[in-house]
């Protein structure tokens, strides 16, 4: 395992990926180190400056430095993505475990119908609806809206794994010595499913970053002045003809973040499961829901 990890990371691609992850994390944790400007300071005289020496990516309408905005937006993006991944992972795993362990029961049936109902919706449509219900003013409602759409994927993944493990010898053995369901699930079943969900959740990051930016683009994401890549894009769209950098630069940031997590997820999956073909068929890379 460790040797495999080393082998993957020592390649130039692996090193670049690692560096990119570090950069994203640095931007999220200590944005001030990476930017020369205050993200909130309005500089009327600097309004809509094209990229140049003073402002590498130009300035927006209020004269705020675009690069600074992007750096400060990293934290917003990563916090939301982490929250949504954690939440969907938790809910999905729980539903999957319960549903799979008592597979075929009425409980399983009900849970799966619920999952079907959620699965039917394209996640952006679902997120739009949920934000309309909860109101976009809280960060948490954005997180919930993005998380709900990803629950079915984990639930199904885990349920499938549990169903196949249920009849495995070690589970039968645990059962025969009278272990409780909670213990069997927690001690024996859950560890066996972790490899599927770890890889899936890293890839899930990239899907959620995409959805979050789409939500912000539609005006339903985090509220200003908290910097947000999607909203920068939206505000910049108005000036596309006269100041294209305002809209185009944050798109690159979204692209890079999605790319990094997508690739990291695939790397991890390759590490955990060397014969990846089977997993690939189960989930086309990057497709957030299938």
């Amino acid at each position, binding site marked *: 395992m460790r040797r495999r990890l080393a082998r993957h990371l020592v390649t130039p691609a692996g090193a670049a990926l690692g560096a990119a992850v570090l950069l994203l994390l640095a931007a999220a944790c200590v944005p001030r180190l990476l930017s020369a400007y205050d993200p*909130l300071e309005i500089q009327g005289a600097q309004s809509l400056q094209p990229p140049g020496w003073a402002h590498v990516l130009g300035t927006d*309408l*209020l004269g705020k430095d675009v690069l600074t905005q992007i750096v400060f937006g990293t934290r917003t993006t990563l916090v939301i993505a982490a929250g949504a991944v954690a939440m969907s992972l938790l809910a999905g795993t729980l539903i999957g475990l319960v549903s799979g362990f008592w597979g075929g029961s009425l409980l399983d049936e009900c849970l799966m119908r619920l999952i079907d109902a959620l699965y039917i919706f394209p996640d952006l449509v679902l997120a739009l609806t949920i934000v309309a219900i909860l109101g976009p*003013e809280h960060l948490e409602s954005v997180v919930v809206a993005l998380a709900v759409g990803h629950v079915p994927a984990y639930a199904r993944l885990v349920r499938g794994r549990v169903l196949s493990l249920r009849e495995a010898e070690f589970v039968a053995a645990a059962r025969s010595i009278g272990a409780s369901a909670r213990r069997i699930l927690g001690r024996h079943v859950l560890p066996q499913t972790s490899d599927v969900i770890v890889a899936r959740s890293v890839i899930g990051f990239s899907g959620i970053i995409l959805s979050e930016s789409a939500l912000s683009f539609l005006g339903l994401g985090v509220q200003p002045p908290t910097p947000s890549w999607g909203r920068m894009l939206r505000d910049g769209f108005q000036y*596309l*003809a*006269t100041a294209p950098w305002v809209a185009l630069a944050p798109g690159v940031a979204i692209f890079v973040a999605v790319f990094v997590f997508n690739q990291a997820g695939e790397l991890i999956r390759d590490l955990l499961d060397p014969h990846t073909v089977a997993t690939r068929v189960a989930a086309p890379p990057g497709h957030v829901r299938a």
Partner: protein
Amino acid sequence: MTGQTAGGRRGLTRRGLLRGGAGAAAALIAAGRTTPAAAQPPGVLRIARGADARSLDPHINARLYDRMVLYTLYEPLIDADGEGRFFPVLAKSWEVGSTGLVVTFHLRSGVVFHDGTPFTADAVKWNIERVLDPATGSEHRTRFEGIIQGVQAVDATTVRIYLTRPYPPLFSELTDRPGLMVSPAAVKKYGRDFGRNPVGTGAFRFVEWIQGNRVAVQRSEQYWNRRAIRSTGIVFTDFPEPAVADARLRGGDLDVVALEGLPADDVLAFQKQSAYRVVLSPAYRWEAIQMKVDVPPFDNRNLRQAIMYGINREQIHTVIYRGLGKATGKFFHEGWWQDPAYNGPAYNPDLAKRRLRESGYLDRPVPLLLYVLSSQVPLGEMAQAQLAAIGLRTNIRLVSERDQYPMVLRGEIPFTIPETWTPRVDPHGLSYILWHSKGYANSSHYRNPQVDKLLDDASATYDTKTRTKLYRQAERLIVEDASYVFYYAAPDYAVMRSQVRGFRYGFDLMPRVAEAWVGD
């Protein structure tokens, strides 16, 4: 794309023409397609608007901005020019009785609706009663209710409106949607579907409405003033994103872009190019920060005045609006009633800080929640920064275009930017509904007995001189009480190819495009 211009102006749709069924117009458009460019007859005018039509029934659910389309299909009895003077349309003349309680309109004769039914005094009576009837569900009912006592069709071309009290603003109301004349026969025929089968007396008749895309109209050959109309048809396409509309105009696929809220930078960019022309409306749309004055902390006049003096109007004007329009602290900017000697309060940080201290909120700060229109985020951030500079901390919540006004009206958002209104042709219109204690749109719950009296007195006389004096006094009181903090006023802008002629704005900031056409 641009090469297609030689092939003639983009015509109305084939499908639309079949449905419209007017052979003459079809022939004209077909001719337009084949004639060489030089001898090309004026063709179809292509206009971009900011949103899809909501309803083409002027009395029910039509959006404010649907008026550009409505005025090609329908006509009012009278309309107002850029200076706010009324001129005859379906009425040839009108007079106010000596008591001020009876208004008589003499109608143009020989006018027919697009469905062939005649336009008569009975139709006028029927239309006004339609707006007044609660069963119609017209949101404009409040504009006539309690004011119009009855309507009488004296003969085919004479109609009398009886009022409960002298009411000069009636003429202004009649130029807006409730005053547009629809065909009674068509309303009976289509029922609740009339909103997408509009029939009026206007210069253009309805062809098609592809929802979410466009409305097409074509010239009515029976129109009473047919000679004044040069375009064979008009296509209104909706472009929610200005960047997309701009690209189409540059690509030669549009003649006019008349989007509400066109980004100022775009307007400036087009102004520099000789191939395009920018037309400004004669009147102004004002913007303000609105506060609900019966809830703390906004019930504190000193706090409101701190905001009033703390807003740097010049900065907003130059940065957000790129120097277009004007930085201003008042709300009357047009017509005979505007006060040239008054410009409202100006930015004064020292005074703002003093007022804040006097308000008591400097020592015990309260977190203020400023609701910012989601399409105006930079404006909100700038206001936030300016208020922070005088020591007032605010947080921002975004509110969508559709949510903002309903939430203001229900008192759910007591502090919002921007609240914006377009002027009416009479000062009474807005000032009464917004600041009279009985005004239906007085969502800031503003109450000043002095203002009430001034507004009551001013709307009860037809004497313009007296009214001018009263309204100017009221304006100062309203501004200084700062339930609304005014900071900006701007005309609306339309960008068009320089060949477009005859495009004009009404006093209400709505383009009147019936007489517009593309010249050589």
